[in-house]
């Protein structure tokens, strides 16, 4: 005999867990093989506390570890911010220097072309470095703490 899942199974399981399988639902369970099985398995697993003997660590320890992890991540993010800031500052300084030196505040077409070409030369590796740093930080934050 083949059987199919019944649409009332979730309702039955919830009632068994709450301990109030009665009335119409109880009558349904008596007449539905699928729901009866679901009710039996639920009773079995509710009664059998698999893994209950395992002593779990206290919430204080987990909280302390999480706090340390969050602080470490914050420090890493601050370092990244500092590196980005230094790079941007250096770039801005260099470009400003090109604009104002050596002919005062005048900017000629030639100078603008030089400025653009220098910007491109400088920006490309900067973007690559920033992308690499971002990838490293992202990868590091995703790495699992459990290592085997």
């Amino acid at each position, binding site marked *: 005999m083949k059987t199919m899942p019944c649409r009332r199974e979730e309702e039955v399981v919830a009632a068994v867990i709450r301990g109030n399988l009665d009335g119409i639902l109880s009558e349904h369970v008596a007449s539905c093989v699928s729901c009866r*099985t679901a009710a039996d398995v639920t009773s079995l697993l509710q009664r059998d506390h698999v893994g209950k003997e395992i002593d779990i660590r206290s919430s204080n320890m987990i909280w302390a570890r*999480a706090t340390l992890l969050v602080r470490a991540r914050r420090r890493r993010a601050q370092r990244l911010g500092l590196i980005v800031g230094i790079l941007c500052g250096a770039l801005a300084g260099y470009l400003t220097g090109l604009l104002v030196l050596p002919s005062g505040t005048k900017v000629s077409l030639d100078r603008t072309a030089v400025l653009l070409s220098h910007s491109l030369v400088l920006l490309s590796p900067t973007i690559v470095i920033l992308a690499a740093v971002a990838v490293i930080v992202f990868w590091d934050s995703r790495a699992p703490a459990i290592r085997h």
Partner: protein
Amino acid sequence: MIDRSRFESIYRETSSKVTRYVGSVIGRSSQVEDITQEAYLRLLTSAPDRLSDRQLKSYLFTTATNIIRDLWRRGAVTGDWMPLDQENTTHAVSMGAVAEKVDVTKALESLSIMQRSLVWLAYAGGYSHREIAEITGIREKSAKVLLFRARQKFISRIRGDGALTERNS
């Protein structure tokens, strides 16, 4: 990061359940503690603050499932993730008087890791099919079908051990 009092309340309410879930799925106590702790760590360090308590609890089970999956991929957790074949276990198996001494752990071990996860979440955790689908990362329809097959295999295994007797026999 969620505040400490909220975390402690969630921890009190869920730690036993999460530990039992992980223990049922991997069946090896040496890793259960580490996986459980890692799930809580990720809850604290990565879960968005705006989640409700119910969502945070689902997040915990999702995280624990993901950690187990990662460990399984790296060979640190043994067993098949999904059943290797389409086992013909859709025949009706009626359970009757449930014996007092049933080796549930042994019956669970006969299932694949995903099947253990589904059976536990549905019948011990009381999660709906939709929630189970979210936690395990599969579609709701697939979750229903896989859960049904897993349940039938679980029952067959228990009956095979002679721990249960058929009501209608």
